[in-house]
């Protein structure tokens, strides 16, 4: 099977600072692929570059066999690459429903907006209860649900999740991990950057470890959990 995403020798950065120094990795269809690494290792930079929010300094991005390195971010969304950014960046002064509807902004998603909204409310009944509330009045966990549901409204084929459980209560984090597993079961391909290494590896098909903007290690979820270096560096054992 061809990979959904292939990154070849990807480099990116902010101004004079290069945060990513030539990372190559592949994401298999219908898998959960995870990016691990400490703060500043380049996980967010990688996801932002794939989503087209940051320009590619070097290398290529191939999505479903098509080179998208020079595509704009809105074109990538229309192709099916959707990122849920870190920090629950919802639209605070719009209602929950308006937030969701805006998720189906891309031409491909727009025609199925009503259907998407129904699916979002089935998946997150809490959002249905709060549909006419302002996004900014939701709790942290609800905002993360909203951000995730808004991303799904864009009808992704590849969902990029940047630290979705950061700062959430443990019960909420569990729920988000469950949702990610469900999304995979429904056929989605997921690239996930996370700090919670143990729980992330438990659901991962494939993992990549970034250190200072370079690829340090890779393997299946089970291999990485068993790896001594992962144990001492990230799991405290």
């Amino acid at each position, binding site marked *: 099977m061809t990979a959904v995403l292939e990154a070849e020798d990807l480099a990116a950065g902010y101004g004079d600072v290069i945060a990513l120094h030539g990372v190559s990795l592949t994401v298999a269809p219908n898998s959960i692929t995870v990016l691990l690494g400490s703060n500043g290792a380049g996980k967010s930079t990688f996801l932002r570059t794939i989503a087209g929010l940051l320009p590619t300094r070097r290398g290529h991005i191939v999505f479903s066999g098509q080179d998208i390195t020079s595509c704009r971010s809105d074109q990538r*969304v229309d192709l099916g690459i959707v990122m849920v950014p870190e920090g629950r960046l919802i639209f605070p002064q*719009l209602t929950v429903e308006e937030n969701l509807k*805006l998720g189906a902004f891309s031409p491909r998603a727009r025609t199925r907006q009503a259907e998407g909204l129904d699916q979002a409310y089935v998946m997150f009944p809490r959002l249905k209860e709060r549909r006419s509330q302002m996004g900014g009045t939701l709790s942290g966990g609800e905002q993360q649900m909203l951000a995730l549901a808004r991303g799904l409204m864009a009808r992704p084929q590849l969902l990029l999740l940047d630290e979705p459980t950061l700062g959430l209560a443990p019960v909420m984090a569990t729920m988000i991990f469950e949702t990610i597993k469900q999304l995979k079961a429904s056929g989605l391909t997921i690239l996930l950057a996370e700090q919670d290494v143990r729980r992330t590896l438990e659901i991962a098909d494939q993992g990549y470890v970034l250190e200072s903007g370079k690829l340090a290690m890779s393997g299946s979820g089970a291999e990485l959990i068993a790896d001594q270096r992962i144990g001492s560096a990230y799991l405290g054992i």
Partner: protein
Amino acid sequence: MQPVPIRTSLIFVAVIGAASFLPQFGSEYVVAVALSFAMWVALAQSWTVLCGMTGYGSFGHAAFYGMGAYVQVLTWGTLSPWLSVPLAGLVSCLFALAAGYPALKVRGPYFVMLTFGLAEFLKFSIIGIEATLGQFSRLIIGAPSPNALYLAMLGLAAAATLITYVVSNSRFGYGLRAIREEEQAAETIGIPVARYKLTAFGLSAFIPGMVGAVMAMRLSYFEPSQAFDALISFNIVVMAMIGGSDDARGPLLGALFLIGLSELLWARAPQVYMIVLGALLVFFVLFAPQGLAKQLFGGARRRAT
């Protein structure tokens, strides 16, 4: 895009229709005040398309007005004045696109300062060019009648109101609001942020350029420090803020309120006008930051896309 409510369109047509008969029975003074009102409506509506919706506050809209006035005096005698008006809009629009490309990369107070700085830069550049050419003010002789100019301005106010209304209810308008709410998230859901901002900036400069061209004829002279006066930018911001809202209602209310106030005060107590204006602005920022539209229409919510 939702269908235009019949009641709203009827009111709109009736008001414009009635206003176009004003020169037949109104005094010269009434027509002059109505022209000034139409001018501020046109300017504040244009400002709202960019600033009300995207949250990028421009403090430099005088630049577009001044550019329009300058185009009118430069082409006076060579081009038909009515041809110069759309040309002035086009020049302002192109200038906005060129200036907006770098300027829209910064936001918040930086964008405000940048637009203010650009407008001042343009003002002093034109003053310099005019001085080099030995022109300290240019006269316009043989301008159309005040009544004709009033009708032109009324048309511009109607067009600006229509543009704001259409944008406000369009997919484009919701994209702009998403940018205001959270620009990065807007980008992740596929809103072409950079293109949308630039389009809004260009759109918000078009009508002010035409307004400047009409006003140059009304004043029948051009003097750069007046045509590019920062007070024009300031007034636009105050009206839009007092009006509030990110649709076409706010600018109408703001202009009505401020023109009414200024007509009342200029005649009776000109020395306190600016003081009252300052106090009002403080009052609105502190106690009604969402403006008159919110106070009058309550939280009448818009529906998304």
